[in-house]
Every structure is written in C-alpha cells, then in structure tokens.
C-alpha cells in the first residue's frame, strides 16, 4: 500500500495529483464506513422489536418501534390476557405498547438513578480534577519547584497502574472508611486518576501563555493570585474546557473501578448496561437503547474536541 502512495507522490509531494487524492479518499471513506457500521447497528437495534433484534438472518430493514426504550426505562410483569382485558384502557402510549406483549408496567427501572450517578460522579470528579490540576499546572509552569520533573513523572505514573491492581487496596481502604459503593468514594478515586491528565495537559496550555502578560499585571500592582485570576485564567479558558471534557469522558466511560467497587447505590452506567436483562437473556433492544443514550454525548464531545484531541490522548506530548 505504501509503495503505491509513494509512487503517486513523485508528481509533487506537497500537492498530490487528483488521482492520488481520489484513491486515498475512497480508501479512507471505505475504512470509515466499515468502522461506523457497528455503531449504526447499535442505534438501529435500539429501534427493533425483541424478535427483530435476534432474527436470523439479521434484519437490515424492520418496522421501527420504541419498545427498546420503553423496556429500558420500565420494569414489567407478565399477566394473563384476561387480566389485561379487565384493566382500564391504557393511559399512555407506552402502557399500550407494553400491553401488546401481555405485560403491564410495574414501575421505573434503575436506569435513571444509574444515569444520575454517572452524571454526578462524572461532573464531580471533573470539577475537582480540573480545579486541582489548574493550580498545580500553574505552579509547575511558572515557579521553580524542586524536583519538578520527578514530581510530574510521579503524577503521571499513578495513571499507568492497572486499574484492577489499584482496586485491591482501594477496596480494603474504602471498607474501613465506609466509602465502598458511595458516590463520594468514586468521585475521589476518579479525581485522583484524572488529576494526572489535568496537570499534564494544563501545564502545556499555561506554558503557551506568554509570561509577559502576568509580569505586566504584577508591575501594575496585582498580586500573584489576582494576576492568575484576571490574566492567566481567561487566556487558558479553551485549554481548561478541553481538559474538562477529557476528564469527563474518562469518568463517564470508566468500567473497571466501577464494576469492582460499586454494586448499587453508586453504580454508574458502564457496569449497569450489560445487565439489562429481559425474559431469557439480554434484552438487546433495551441494551442498544441504553448504549445509544450513553454514547451520544461522547460523540458530540468528540466533534467539539477535534482540535485538541491529539493533545488530550498524548498527555500534551504532541501538539498541532
């Protein structure tokens, strides 16, 4: 493959020939389409009925239904047709949908509390990590700190540890502190993981802000803290926002700690989704519906982050 590309560059390496561009373009688009297919299948499965979702051969065209979403948000019980016939007419469209399958809604499912947990733990840990990270990054960027490189390496290395290995002592420690399966415990843990990314990324962003601005503010009689608040922070807003989104995505997606350290109260979406079960195994339309709702915010964030993506995934090592 590379040989073909190299040959086509003989024309001019700086600007490719139209033919080379067309070939490259179609190959990339082909790869992109294949890559996106599984995601399209998830979104489509969410609108299938139970039987369509597990039909053979797999159904590409189907009658769309909201059953998956209804099943995701409700707990249902099976009833006899007689029982259902005696009930007053259904009040809502989803009552009606459920009754078509000889079931009645028994109550809400746990998905909303799990979603709320994901939000609280995600935003809580992001806020803390970005707050602590901004302070530390500013100090590392502007002051001479003894052993700064060692400290920065130490901060980074905490993120390199396998989560399952970290979870063993955390589990024991949280048991003693009554933090097992609490949102506070998860927020603290995710903050500790995220703060390393925040420090590294934000140090890069703050390094790029010329010191002269602050020095000028200091000359004008600002204190360091005033200069930080009124000069540096406004300049760093984009970087802070990008960092925050990266931290949020990590907390949102995290599975290992969540599955090992939470079971109910503080459980987030990732360990919950695989256990959305219907009658006889996983309720795939409901799982797909949950996955769709869970993934959509990330897709939006990815598009927002495009410019900073490279920086975020390399801890600020590579910048465009």
């Amino acid at each position, binding site marked *: 493959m590379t040989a073909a590309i190299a040959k086509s560059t003989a024309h001019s390496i700086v600007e490719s020939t139209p033919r080379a561009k067309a070939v490259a373009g179609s190959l990339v688009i082909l790869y992109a389409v294949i*890559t996106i297919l599984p995601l399209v299948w998830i979104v489509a499965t969410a609108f299938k009925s139970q039987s369509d979702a597990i039909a053979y051969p797999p159904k590409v065209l189907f009658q769309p239904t909201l059953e998956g979403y209804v099943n995701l948000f409700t707990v249902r019980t099976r009833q006899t047709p007689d029982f259902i016939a005696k009930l007053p007419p259904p009040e809502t469209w989803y009552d009606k949908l459920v009754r078509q399958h000889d079931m009645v809604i028994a109550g809400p499912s746990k998905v909303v509390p799990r979603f709320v947990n994901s939000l609280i733990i995600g935003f809580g840990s992001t806020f803390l990590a970005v707050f602590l990270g901004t302070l530390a990054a500013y100090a590392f960027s502007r002051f001479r700190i003894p052993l700064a490189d060692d400290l920065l390496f*130490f901060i980074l290395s905490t993120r*390199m540890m396998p989560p399952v290995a970290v979870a063993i002592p955390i589990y024991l420690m949280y048991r003693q502190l009554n933090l097992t399966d609490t949102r506070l415990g998860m927020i603290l843990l995710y903050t500790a993981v995220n703060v390393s990314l925040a420090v590294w990324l934000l140090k890069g962003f703050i390094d790029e802000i010329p010191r002269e601005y602050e020095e000028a503010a200091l*000359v004008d009689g600002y204190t360091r803290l005033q200069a930080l608040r009124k000069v540096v922070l406004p300049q760093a807003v984009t970087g802070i926002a990008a960092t925050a989104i990266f931290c949020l995505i990590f907390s949102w997606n995290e*599975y290992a700690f969540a599955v090992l350290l939470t079971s109910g109260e503080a459980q987030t979406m*990732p360990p919950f989704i695989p256990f959305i079960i219907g009658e006889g195994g996983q309720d795939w339309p409901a799982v797909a519906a949950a996955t769709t709702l869970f993934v959509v915010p990330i897709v939006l964030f990815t598009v927002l982050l495009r410019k900073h993506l490279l920086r975020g995934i390399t801890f600020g090592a590579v910048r465009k």
Partner: protein
Amino acid sequence: MTTILQPDHVTIPGVSEPAKSRATRRVRGLSDRAIAWLFVAPTIALLLAINIFPLVWMIRLSFTSLNLSMSYLPLRFVGLDNFTDILTDEDVWFRLQTTAQFVISSVALQVVIGFGLALLINRQFRGHSFWTTMILLPMMLSPAVVGNFWTLLFQPQIGPFNYLISLFTGVPPSSFSMTGEVALAPWTIVLVDTWMWAPYVMLICLAGLRSIPDYIYEAAEVDRASAWRQFWSITLPMTVPFLMLAVLFRAIENFKMFDMVNLLTSGGPGSTTELVSITLKRAAFEKWRTGYSSALAIILFVTVFGAANIYVKVLNKVKQR
C-alpha cells in the same frame, strides 16, 4: 521542600531593570514560594492518599496470607511465599504469555492500519476532516459498553458479523463463533481492540507527517530522489518518534486491558483470552485471595512502571523536536 522553592527568574524583554525590581517589590499578598507550595500540595496529597498509601498497604499485604473470604483467620505473614508461588506458577506464565501475544499483535496491527490511514489522510482529499472524525469515534467510546455490544454482533446465528463473513466467503454463519472458539477468540479481542485504537495511532502519525516541512520534500525533488527513496529517508524516519510514542502508549494500555475483554469473552473460552488483569480480578475479587493478588499486582506495577519510565524518556525526546 518548601524552603528551597524559588520564584522563577526570567528576563523580560522590554522591561528595564528598575521596572523589574519595582515589580518584585510591589508584589503583595502571598509570596511566590507559598503559592507554589499551596498549589501543588493538594494534588500531591490526593495522590498520596488514593494511590500511594493504598500501594504501601498492599505491599504489606503481599507478604501475608490474607484471604477476605476467611478474614476471621489471624493475619499471618508468609514472607516471600506469594511471590515465589506466582513466579513458579505455570498458569501465571501462560497468562503473561497470552497478554504479551495480545499486546504485540494488537499494537502491530494498529501501527500498520494507523500509519497507512495517516498516509492516506495526509493526501488532503476533499472532506478528509469529516471522515477523520468518523474514524476517530470508536476510541472515544467506553470499551466496556461497546465491548458488551460486540457480543451481539459476534453471535454465531443472529449476529451481523458472521452473516457478513458468510456473504463474502460462503462459510455458513452458524459454523463458527468468534468469541466461543479457542482458535478465534484471541483474534477477536485483537480485532475489537484494533477497531477501537487504530485511530489513535493514526492521529499521532498524522501529527508526525504534518510536522515534516514541505521544503525537505522540495529539496529531495530537486535532487531527483525517487518517491520510494523519499518515503524511506524522509517520511518514515521523521514519523518514527511519533510512532514510538503511540506504540508505547498502546502497549501500556493494552497490558492493563480489562474492560473490553472482560465483557467480550471474560477470558474464555477456557482461558484462551485470560489476560493478567482478568487473572488478577479473579484472584482478588472472586477467590478473595488478597495476599496472593497483592503480590501479583505488585509484579504488574513494577512491569508497568518500568515501561512508563521508557515512555516518559521517549515522550521527552519527541517534545524536544
């Protein structure tokens, strides 16, 4: 530590000496030294509490026979027994081998696909930025949630993956199971991992390719260097530091791999896809052998820490460019 903190003395172009000394004199409020300490301390304190203190505790436990399912037993110190048990256990070595095979094959595949895609995208065809974003999507998603969904895609009867394969090859879709067969399962986790992370390598390679100034190629054109020659003596060497960064990062991440594989195959069939993280989870959270699993965790720490050291060295090298 606080006593040796110093403000960073930098010469400010355009600011005269008297103005500078006036600036230092007029800074009010907390001293720079105090601020530096105040700003770094909370982060270090949090990491000490959440990472280092538990780590030290775990080192202590690794010398004991603690088993949480029998925690009524008195804590017994067994010296290095856990470590010798692990390092002489053939099963553990098999798991490490499985992990190494997974890391090597997935990273190699990701490098080939990622670098290839980067070369293609660097042609700057129309709409390349939109399609790049599309390709990047999988790596931003939760490996657990997505890994879980791949189990449906891989179902032998009803899954679209087998169906597509049978459309193209004619092999009956129910005749093979991507997650259930000893011969296929190790490749299945490599496949899903590559689907997620080839874009990562691509993105970093793209940055490498874009860092090569045009004039180098123009000079090569003047020297009538063949396109093949240009690729081998300009493009490749100048992207290698970026590629190395990507490889090391992926290698560390995949060495730690737990979420996607746990949901896709949970280590099976048998133990064909049982990576060390899964072994560790079973020992610690299913068999509750805390002493033993602490020792295993420490062995993994040391391995990752060594790799992290190399990683940071490469990282600094790339930064210097």
